[in-house]
């Protein structure tokens, strides 16, 4: 037996605290580090776990007083009162003091003093120098002291895609696509009949809104109805083809993708620092959906576009722009702690990649192992290392502000010619501004001289005639000159402001730049950040991919020499990766059907929801992959299903009590009715009132308008930024987005659940709150749309006009009672116009009728 041990450990207390087996292992303690570790593991750690971890560990979910005891660094750093242990000095150790109950203010554990033997053990451990092998917070240890995380093998979404044949159904005439058979089989097994088909009006509006985000014109719904009468299947297929080919499709569907990337045109949570080149990424996304880019290419370009071989300048430029997926985000550039800022950026990149592409909540493993899903902290930092080896922020903008990485884009010869012309125009603009300012300066100087001369004249006059002492203020010539001087000085100031703005815009006008990431010169693995703190570093976590979603032959780590972004992209879109295809087809399904088969579209983990139709989801994914990962072809199939063409009401099923069994329509016994999303409400209001501008693409930050750009350093965009008229009538996807929410002119969108622009979001919420009603009732935008709408209701008598208006807004013929009610409303509102002529009051009433239709549920929702 060890001498050390003999001296310090009274046998009786040891026996009272530990089993004989523990005694034996303890007997080997002291001496070499392995023995020290064993001693700690067998003797001390169990005590800490039993008595301290509840309040002082990650597993316990608490760090009372800021102290954790589940790692060596936990007590080295200590809590609010400083280090908990002074190795070798129990007398100076807070922990020893606390358990000794000597100090009335510091008694631990709070619910009662520990047995003397236990206190002696802990004090002795400290006296021995507090050997503690837990150099970093260790995932394995944490796993033991909390409910075990179910293994990867138990998570449905990690399992390989299964080839599934569609089930047999009794009503073989109903399905239009094998997908329908999965749904119908479930309904039949529950004894439910699907809803009848929706009528042609409803279907036309649904197709237009879901595929393009714009409602049909009366002519378009008429045409569809005629085709639908001849052949419903062909009518749907034809219209779907045409809508998928229209530019509006890309605009609608890219917006969903932008939600997943927390897109905005500014950087920073506090200051609205402009990201004047972010729009290129937005346009890239629109182009990718319009061009039906195969999903794997879409993913590779966004994660590693700068690393891919390109055949020409246009392709190379597109791929650099695509990395905006990683480069654009709510980076807190002003954060003075640059090490933490770097890790915060990397964290968002890991989270975003995990959430958008894999349906995994990887962010949960930043500070500790994922509590619910099979993802360790080491795996998190394995991924983080890939982005740690990537440059996102680069140098300094000004003082403490970090700079974002902007890189020049290769251009085609034609683009270069056009750019040279743009540079010439820009230079001319600068020269003109300069000469306007120097003219104004010269003018001001001349006026100052004149004023001085006039004042001298007046002074002479007043000395000769002292009664005239107020002459200066009374002199009209002088005050006129002063007015002119103020005006000239105003133009000088305006010129100063204009030139500052132009200086800011110079690089963006005369060069083609993109927000992008690039490779670090040498890839570098990341060390685990203990508790997510960039200054408390643990072990190195070699770069690698998550192990959970595994398959035969799956790579586990990138090769040396590169960051690994390219190989990460390959790993994600590997046809055998069980997550990417499932997650994406579920997102597409959600956009088309209004609800996902997995409703937690961003979370395919244990805390997410299981799919309502797992076989269907696998079949969708398999067919999607087999069909070249084409999103457009997938959408075309989905809208052609019989299930999608159902009406939103199913009286027979309701009569049979279905609402008690499936209140949320997970079995799809009817179509899901949805309130339109924010952009669609605004775009549809502009469209039906004839005000929508179809201008597309390009920068939309209104920096050209003097006063919008604060030219302090760093530049920021003003809150009340003004917009050119044309911009404010564009589709919502082209409106600039600020990190801290929309610009004032766009607050309409925020009211209708535009997601937080700082948070990646694939599951927008839908609320019904009074601020929406106030906005619909009182915002000038809606009132203006109502007026324009009434103005285009055409000629004819009031009855015909009202019918045309209802028809245009609801995309269906008006019913007689509706027209009666509308006319009664018009009469009531234009009664007794005390304050204005009767025809004006009538026009106003029409405008309010238009507005009323735009704020009715039937317009704000789709069946």
């Amino acid at each position, binding site marked *: 037996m060890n001498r050390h041990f003999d001296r310090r450990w009274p046998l009786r207390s040891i026996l009272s605290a530990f089993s004989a087996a523990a005694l034996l292992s303890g007997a080997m303690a002291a001496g070499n580090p392995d023995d020290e570790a064993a001693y700690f593991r067998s003797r001390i750690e169990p005590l800490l776990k039993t008595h301290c971890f509840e309040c002082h560990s*990650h597993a316990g979910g*608490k*760090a009372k007083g800021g102290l954790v005891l589940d790692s060596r660094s936990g007590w080295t750093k200590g809590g*609010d*009162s400083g280090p908990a242990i002074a190795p070798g000095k129990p007398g100076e150790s807070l922990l020893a003091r606390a358990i000794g109950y000597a100090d009335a203010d510091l008694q631990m554990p709070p619910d009662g003093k520990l047995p003397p033997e236990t206190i002696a053990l802990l004090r002795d451990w400290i006296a021995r120098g507090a050997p503690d092998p837990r150099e970093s917070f260790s995932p394995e240890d944490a796993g033991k002291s909390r409910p075990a995380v179910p293994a990867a093998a138990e998570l449905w979404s990690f399992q390989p895609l299964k080839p599934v044949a569609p089930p047999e159904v009794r009503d073989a005439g109903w399905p239009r696509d094998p997908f329908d058979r999965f749904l119908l089989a479930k309904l039949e097994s529950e004894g439910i009949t699907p809803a009848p088909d929706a009528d042609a009006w409803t279907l036309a509006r649904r197709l237009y809104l879901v595929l393009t985000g714009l409602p049909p014109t009366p002519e378009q719904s008429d045409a569809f109805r005629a085709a639908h009468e001849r052949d419903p299947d062909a009518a749907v297929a034809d219209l779907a083809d045409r809508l998928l080919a229209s530019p509006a499709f890309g605009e609608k569907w890219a917006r969903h993708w932008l939600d997943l990337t927390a897109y905005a045109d500014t950087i920073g*949570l*506090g*200051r609205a620092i402009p990201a004047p080149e972010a729009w290129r990424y937005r346009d890239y996304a629109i182009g990718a959906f319009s061009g039906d880019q195969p999903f794997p290419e879409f993913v590779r370009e966004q994660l590693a576009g700068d690393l891919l071989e390109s055949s020409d300048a246009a392709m190379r430029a597109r791929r650099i722009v695509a990395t905006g997926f990683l480069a654009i985000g709510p980076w*807190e550039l*002003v*954060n*003075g*702690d640059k090490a933490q800022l770097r890790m*915060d950026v990397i*964290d968002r990149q890991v989270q975003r990649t995990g959430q958008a592409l894999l349906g995994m*909540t990887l*962010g949960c493993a930043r500070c500790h192992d994922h509590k*619910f899903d099979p993802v360790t902290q080491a795996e998190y930092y394995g991924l983080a290392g890939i982005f740690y080896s990537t440059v996102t922020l680069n140098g300094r903008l000004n*003082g*403490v502000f970090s700079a974002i990485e902007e890189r020049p884009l290769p251009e085609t010869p034609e683009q270069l010619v056009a750019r040279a012309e743009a540079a010439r125009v820009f230079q001319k603009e600068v020269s003109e501004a300069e000469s306007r300012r120097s003219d104004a300066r010269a003018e001001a100087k001349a006026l100052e001289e004149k004023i001085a001369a006039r004042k001298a004249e007046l002074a002479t006059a007043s000395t000769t005639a002292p009664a005239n002492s107020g002459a200066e203020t009374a002199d009209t010539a002088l005050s006129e000159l002063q007015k002119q001087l103020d005006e000239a000085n105003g133009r000088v100031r305006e010129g100063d402001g204009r030139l500052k703005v132009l200086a800011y815009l110079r690089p963006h006008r005369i060069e083609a730049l993109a927000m992008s990431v690039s490779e670090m010169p040498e890839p570098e693995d990341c060390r685990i950040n203990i508790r997510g703190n960039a*200054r408390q570093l643990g072990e190195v976590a070699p770069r690698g991919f998550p192990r959970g979603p595994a398959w035969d032959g799956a790579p586990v780590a990138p090769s040396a020499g590169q960051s690994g972004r390219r190989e990460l992209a390959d790993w994600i879109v590997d046809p055998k990766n069980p997550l990417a295809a499932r997650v994406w087809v579920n997102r597409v399904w959600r956009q088309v059907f209004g609800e996902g088969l997995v*409703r*937690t579209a*961003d*979370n395919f983990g244990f*805390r997410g929801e299981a799919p309502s139709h797992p076989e269907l989801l696998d079949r969708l994914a398999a067919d999607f992959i087999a069909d070249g990962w084409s999103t457009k072809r997938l959408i075309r199939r989905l809208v052609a299903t019989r299930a999608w063409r159902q009406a*939103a009401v199913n009286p027979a099923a309701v009569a049979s009590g279905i609402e008690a069994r499936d209140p949320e329509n997970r079995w799809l016994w009817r179509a899901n*009715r949805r*309130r339109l999303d924010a952009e669609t409400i605004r775009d549809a209001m502009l469209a039906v009132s004839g005000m929508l501008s179809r201008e597309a693409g390009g920068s939309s930050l209104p920096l050209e308008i003097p006063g919008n750009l604060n030219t302090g350093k760093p530049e920021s965009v003003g809150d009340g930024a003004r917009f050119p008229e044309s911009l404010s009538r564009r589709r919502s996807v082209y409106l600039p987005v600020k990190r*801290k*929410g929309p610009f004032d002119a766009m*607050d309409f969108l925020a009211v209708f*659940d535009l997601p*937080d622009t700082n*948070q990646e979001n694939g599951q927008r*919420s*839908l*609320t*019904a*709150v*009074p*601020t929406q*009603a*106030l*906005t619909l*009732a*009182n915002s000038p935008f809606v*009132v203006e749309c109502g007026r324009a709408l009434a103005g285009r209701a055409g000629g004819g008598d009031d009855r015909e006009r009202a019918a045309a208006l209802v028809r245009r807004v609801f995309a269906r013929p008006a019913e007689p009672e509706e027209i009666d*009610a*509308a006319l009664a*409303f018009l009469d009531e*509102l234009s009664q007794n116009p005390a304050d204005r002529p009767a025809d004006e009051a009538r026009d106003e009433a029409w405008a*309010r009728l238009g507005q*009323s239709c735009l*704020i*009715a*549920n*039937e317009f*704000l*929702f789709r069946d």
Partner: protein
Amino acid sequence: MRFDGTVFPGRRAFLKTAASGFGHTALAALLHGQAAAASGARPLAAHAGHFPARAKRVIFLFMQGGPSHVETFDAKPKLDARSGEVAPFARAAGVEQPGVGKMRLFGSGWKFQRRGQSGTRVSELLPEMGATIDDWCVLNGMHTDNLAHAPACLQIHTGTTTFVWPSMGSWVSYGLGTENENLPAYITISHMLSGDGGSPQQFGSAFLPAIHQGTRIDLPTAEGADAELRYLRDPKFAGAAQRKQFDFVRGLNRRQLDRLQGDRHMEGMIESFELAFKMQSAAPELFSLKGESEATKKLYGIGEKETDWFGRQCLLARRLAESGVRFIQLNKGGWDHHGNIRQGLPRTCREIDRPVAGLIRDLKARGLFEDTLVVWTGEFGRTPYEQDLSDGKASMENYGRGHNPYGFTTLMAGAGIRGGHIHGATDEYGYHAVEGKVHIHDLHATILHQLGLDHERLTFRHAGRDFRLTDIYGRVVDEILV
């Protein structure tokens, strides 16, 4: 009560609220994934917390910019005595601040006096607040995690310096609902939206149902102006005419709903129009200070140039408190004295001194002090050493102070808080909190505790885990409770 995102008010609470006239509308916040809320669930209906509450409401006075604690509530004689000498301590490592290279101590420019029965030392810059010092508990051991405005402001509102998490007002709304469903549960007045200190993120609901987000009302600085809520009214179309329009729209909606066998979300929209209509008539009266007596206005410094604006904020806060608003935030910037603190600080202090003291006196006079928790705080404090942004060109009298997250002062009053008490201390120069340390998480835990909420049990499941305002931290500072 459940805290999993759907809140079903008890039957008694429902009847009580309905009887008092506020219960006609049900606003179903149909948050995705929370769709289980039964029809008629009222997420804003008042409900009890985890245990009996001392506070029914909170008035949070946010002093954005970082008030200098060593010149207001944390007297440091040694710092004052050695002003101009090189500091005998090192600057905290790993962070960047411009213009602090010389590390010279910079004493308070103003004297402290013992005030009230408690004899608490208060700067001569705050004579009126000094007169109410026996009502306040002074927390001198505050500390926070980041020294830049944006992350620190985010932390004092949401607990995190980095993530998009709900504001404490949103948590309170979620946890307790509100006593007056005609008004939002969480109102913030003239909240800064931009710059380093302001962002809608600070009053956002993040992943909590959107109905819990703070409603920002704007109080114009022009003398005599009332607060405004965006789109509350259409000046050209109000009253009876608009009622006709609402009735017409309601008719359209009802007709459609009948065809559709009902739809919860559509019903929610119909009800929200009714609530909006009520707000249109209730809010302007509530926001108007015209009915307040001259004596009351004077108490708050209303009508005097420097105190008018914040005085109106404070008086409006009392009116909102009386009307049953659960969480009321007032906002006052101007504390970020990097330069010229000798000129700047007295003015900022004057702007709030009388209004804040007036609020305390008025709450006491009206019996609201007992169940209203008042909190006065910045996002951090200021360094005891000077900051010179002029590169040595200006004299020391024109210097200012940098940001100091390591030690600063917060004040709390009302609703079960020990008045006239000092808790915690910074070191002898006022740099680091050393005794009675209270982190932002602890402040949050204590605020929730006074409202009857256990910060460890007030949770919401999001992205696969249960979130709380205090993350995995937080301790109720029971030393400051009665």
